[in-house]
């Protein structure tokens, strides 16, 4: 017994400083390594480590994997670091699972056991193996609103120490046995992401907020327990331009990281970062470089490569002083004083519904009511405008479409427009109405739907329901340039009328000198048209009421615009050019008035053959570019015949245009009807 006691008393363990303390460690996400300041910028599965709140950046399903190779160590080849899966659901929730077989930190500590008594002196060497792992991580995130999201992650941390125990058995023989000490802990992190505006974002992460120990590492090897201190990390992200992103991280362990990502070409990124530790010398302990490529057409395939280089290689080349090892408190399996230079690769795939919502419609403004007669103009002039916003963090190409059920056969689509991340853009949209609109007899409110889409494959990102007022078929908004759409020279009733009237005067027309024939035809048509017509005011309505020419002929009456439109239709149907004269006297807009003029086809120098007084005609260029005499006609005195209508029209034109300078001052407009179809 005394001998045994002596043996026990003399037994001591000797730690020897050795060159072969080995270890392995890793950092998740090549992109994160390259930028460094990644807390507010992390995306997808890598957010499990950096900021679980950012798991919401997952589009639908995400699969990713990382591997790395250490440099300057004896380790060869690439190690599968991690692989995982993330899923977004119900728009505002996301979960993730990470399996990380390569997230391991190992030390082999050479030790000796010495035994000595008076007879025997024995020294034997053995290895003590220390192994840390973080093999599994799970996370959850929830979006509170467009700006805020929160998340939590749990990481399983395993500690294992394999030791050799020596003892003297009952036969006084020295024996040894292997003893394993295990520790298992779940460490809980919490994170918050605040997307302040399109340029700025903030991330807050509490690492190791809670620790749940399933099995604590024995006190016998208590010195090897991972410290896992609570720490607060703050990350700031700033997008300076569409192409440049800057990230900065700082934590309560006095470690800071600053990095940037530059996007010189579409889908290609260059990254660099610097790592600093205020408690270490030199303060800047590592720099990182990286590149990345995104292939949106291949399930959002993303490939990232990074290179992490430590400025001091002490303890980072696969071996370490034992004193350094014992003095260092390992607080993180991934990043610690023994992390070595490395090249990392990450591959990421977006699966499932990758047509995420990237834009939405902020509001829609319908520019004007729809007037059926002139509805064709909305194919060329915007009927409304939508303000769309890019709610993604990348530039988008958006298209706005619009449809009114039953009145349009298909939606119209705007030209594609580019919108930078976070920006808003006003996009005009158009409408092509079908013929049903021409049969609307009373004004009615209709539902219109505006859509914004950013991807060819997606139906749309957002929809906005609006209302438009569709006026009755005879309504007119007072814009004389739209009055021409009431002119229907190809209406069979108009064609029949002109042919029958002119046929009745055929013999007379044939005797007229050729240059005067259009003038004479116009006079005959006017008188034929006038004999049955009466001037009648519009019905009392909120907007101007204009009859179609066939209605004026059928009803034998109308007001100035009805008669102007009807007579213009008659002349246009026999190939005579016409124009509307719109007069809106300054200071009295209620006294607005319309009359018309037509082209006699008589050249200006020959105009004396229709009138000795030049005030009776207007010299204008016709559609062929030659200057001809046009005759102003006041159609409200239709019933008094052509000469009186000409007298009044010419006097009005001279007074308005020559005396009043109305054309010059803009209160008289002459609108040609050459563009009717």
């Amino acid at each position, binding site marked *: 017994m005394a001998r045994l006691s002596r043996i026990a008393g003399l037994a001591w363990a000797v730690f020897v400083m050795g060159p072969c303390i080995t270890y392995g460690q890793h950092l998740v996400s090549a992109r994160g390594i390259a930028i460094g300041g990644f807390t507010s910028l992390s995306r997808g599965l890598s957010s499990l480590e950096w900021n679980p709140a950012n798991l919401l950046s997952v589009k639908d399903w995400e699969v990713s994997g990382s591997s790395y190779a250490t440099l300057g160590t004896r380790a060869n080849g690439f190690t599968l670091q991690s692989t995982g899966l993330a899923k977004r659901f119900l728009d505002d929730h996301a979960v993730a699972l990470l399996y990380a077989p390569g997230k391991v930190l190992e030390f082999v500590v050479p030790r000796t056991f010495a035994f000595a008594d008076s007879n025997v002196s024995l020294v034997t060497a053995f290895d003590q193996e220390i192994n840390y792992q973080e093999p599994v991580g799970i996370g959850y995130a929830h979006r509170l609103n467009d700006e805020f999201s929160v998340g939590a992650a749990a990481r399983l941390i395993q500690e294992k120490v394999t030791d050799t125990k020596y003892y003297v058995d009952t036969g006084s023989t020295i024996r040894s046995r292997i003893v394993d000490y295990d520790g298992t802990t779940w460490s809980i992190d919490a994170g918050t992401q605040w997307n302040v505006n399109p340029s700025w974002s903030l991330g807050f992460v509490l690492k190791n907020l809670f620790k749940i120990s399933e099995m604590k590492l024995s006190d016998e090897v208590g010195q090897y327990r991972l410290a896992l201190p609570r720490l607060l990390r703050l990350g700031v992200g700033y997008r300076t331009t569409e192409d440049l992103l800057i990230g900065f991280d700082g934590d309560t362990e006095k470690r800071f990281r600053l990095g940037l990502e530059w996007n010189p070409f579409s889908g290609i990124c260059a990254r660099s970062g610097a790592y600093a530790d205020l408690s270490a010398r030199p303060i800047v302990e590592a720099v990182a470089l990286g590149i990345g490529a995104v292939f949106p057409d291949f399930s959002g395939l993303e490939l990232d490569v990074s290179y992490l280089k430590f400025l001091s290689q002490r303890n980072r080349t696969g071996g370490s002083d034992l004193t350094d090892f014992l003095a260092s408190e390992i607080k993180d399996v991934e990043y610690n004083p023994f992390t070595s230079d490395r090249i990392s690769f990450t591959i990421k795939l977006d699966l499932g519904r990758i047509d995420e919502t990237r834009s939405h419609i902020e509001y829609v403004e319908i520019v004007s009511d729809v007037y059926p007669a002139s509805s064709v103009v909305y194919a060329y002039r915007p009927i409304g405008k939508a303000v769309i916003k890019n709610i993604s963090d990348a530039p988008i190409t958006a298209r706005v479409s619009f449809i009114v059920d039953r009145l349009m056969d298909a939606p119209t689509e705007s030209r594609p427009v580019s919108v930078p991340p976070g920006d808003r853009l006003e996009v005009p949209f158009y409408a092509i109405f079908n013929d049903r609109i021409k049969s609307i007899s009373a004004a009615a409110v209709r539902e219109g739907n505006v859509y914004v889409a950013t991807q060819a494959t997606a139906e749309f990102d957002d929809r906005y329901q609006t209302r438009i007022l569709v006026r009755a078929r005879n309504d007119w908004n007072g814009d004389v340039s739209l009055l021409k759409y009431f002119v229907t020279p190809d209406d069979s009733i108009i064609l029949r009328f002109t042919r029958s009237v002119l046929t009745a005067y055929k013999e007379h027309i044939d005797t007229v000198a*050729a*240059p005067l024939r259009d003038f004479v035809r116009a006079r005959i048509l006017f008188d034929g048209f006038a004999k049955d017509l009466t001037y009648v005011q519009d019905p009392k309505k909120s907007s101007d009421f204009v009859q179609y020419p066939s209605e004026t002929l059928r009803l034998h009456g109308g007001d100035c615009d009805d008669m102007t439109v009807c007579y213009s239709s008659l002349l246009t149907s026999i190939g005579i050019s016409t124009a509307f004269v719109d007069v809106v006297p300054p200071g009295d807009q209620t006294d607005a008035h319309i009359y018309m003029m037509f082209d006699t086809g008589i050249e200006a120098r020959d105009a004396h053959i229709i009138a000795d007084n030049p*005030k009776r005609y207007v*010299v204008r260029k016709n559609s062929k570019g030659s200057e001809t005499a046009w005759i102003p006609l006041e159609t409200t005195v239709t019933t008094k015949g052509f000469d009186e209508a000409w007298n009044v029209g010419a006097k009005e034109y001279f007074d308005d245009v*020559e005396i009043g300078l109305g054309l010059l001052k803009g209160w008289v407009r002459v609108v040609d009807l050459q*563009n009717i179809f």
Partner: protein
Amino acid sequence: MRTVLVGFAASILSLHVSVGQIKVLEVKGDVRVRHDVQQAWLPVRTGDVLKPNDSMKSGKRSGTTVLTEGKKRVTLPENVVIDLSDLRMLTREELLLKLAMEKVRTLPQEQNDEPAIPEATVLHGTEKVPSYVAHPGDELGNLQLNGTRVLYNTGFYATCALKAKEVFRLYPGLLKKMEFRLMVASALEKESLRGEAITEYASLLNEGLSPSERETVQIRMARLKEKSD
């Protein structure tokens, strides 16, 4: 004394012209008026009150003096036609706009993106008509050009230039009357439109000017360019 006062009042009243009216102060020989857009020329008598949309015409060895609403006496010599609406001063802006409209006339017609009937390259069924050849001569144009001289001499430079340009456009044969074209350029110069005046003078250099006219044009252009510098 009473007679004097009544006479003074009568003379004041006789000079009074309401807004937009032109009073005929004196008539000699055959002077006629054409009201607004009417065709007929009617005789004018002293004391008649005319409107701006009327025109006046004086025959051979005839003449008249009128008082404009701006209290300006204008004397029409023989063989003149003048639109009374031209007896007014235009603002510089109005004149520039009118000149711009004249220029626009010479430009191709405006195109817009609204639907239009495509122009056919061949038009079928058009009537074959001989071009009109009968010309009454440029008598009216000549009389109107004489009227522009009246406008120039009475200081209505803007309406003088515009009316002369209109007459030249309607009666291209009168473009040969270099003295009137020089007058147009000079009227523009009087309105301080140096650029427009230089353009007018420059267009004259390509025409058949007499040596003295050419020298006049060159001197005036040089003077204008000097002022511009």
